[in-house]
């Protein structure tokens, strides 16, 4: 019983769903950002698994691009967290309804 590429896809799907749950169910802004990282990481795992399955390194190049975007996203997200905390003294995302129409 070896490990096939499908095993990695299933693991990637599980990690993605856990991350999606964190984004939806948690109200702490920091933990929502971390769950977002989990989802990106699951996508990266799928990229690398496909790269292995198709014997094509393009998937790994995409994964490096994805990491770059994740780093930029985390930097901007954490800057927003700092700004929100300075303004509201709380990280509750339910407090952020100024844009509600």
């Amino acid at each position: 019983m070896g490990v096939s590429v499908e095993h990695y896809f299933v693991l990637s799907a599980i990690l993605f769903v856990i991350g999606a749950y964190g984004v939806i169910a948690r109200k702490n802004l920091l933990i929502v950002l971390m769950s977002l990282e989990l989802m990106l990481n699951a996508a990266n795992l799928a990229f690398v698994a496909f790269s292995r399955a198709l014997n094509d390194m393009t998937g790994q190049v995409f994964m490096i691009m994805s990491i770059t975007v994740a780093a930029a996203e985390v930097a901007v997200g954490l800057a927003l967290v700092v700004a929100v905390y300075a303004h509201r003294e709380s990280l509750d995302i339910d407090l952020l309804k100024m844009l509600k129409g």
Partner: protein
Amino acid sequence: MTISLSQIYFITRSNYLLFPLFSGGFKRLETVIFYVFAALCVAGALLVITHKNPVSSALSLVLTLFSTAVLFVLLQAHFVAVIQVLVYAGAIMVLFLFTVMFLNLTPEALKFDSRNMAFKGSLLLAVLLFVGYFAARGFQETFSHTLAIPSVSENFGTTEGVGKLLFTDYLLPFELTSILIVAAIIGVVAIAKRRES
């Protein structure tokens, strides 16, 4: 110089009397490593979304990201495994922890996170897993003939192979990411700057 899987194979073969676990040879070892680190991955992810304290969540996220790096090595992607540890488990997590320390959160500031969304979240989780299962089944039936793991070329996943691809076929996207990072840096400074009011 990376340790190739054939070297691991040789080490485990030569020590199989000491480690009965590895006596099945390389396939068995790969399976054991996969399941151990997949379990660590999922456990870390579950801890991230269940902890109340953001510091504990961040450290659990390190566990998940590091285990993913091990899985990348199993997939022969040595370069991106190193990048994963350096950038994700290193830089991004330090950024998270630094922000948590910087905010100086009081216990009262963390009390709002009630679980009244847990039911809706669980429902979504179930639906996503259900849909994902059938998507995976359909995918398996469509592509199963192409997904037998092929033997890889010599420089697959090495710095040389990925770097060549990055600096020839994907040179323009690579340069564009530098613009993205500059834009992100300027945005971060503009957002986080203290305003005089």
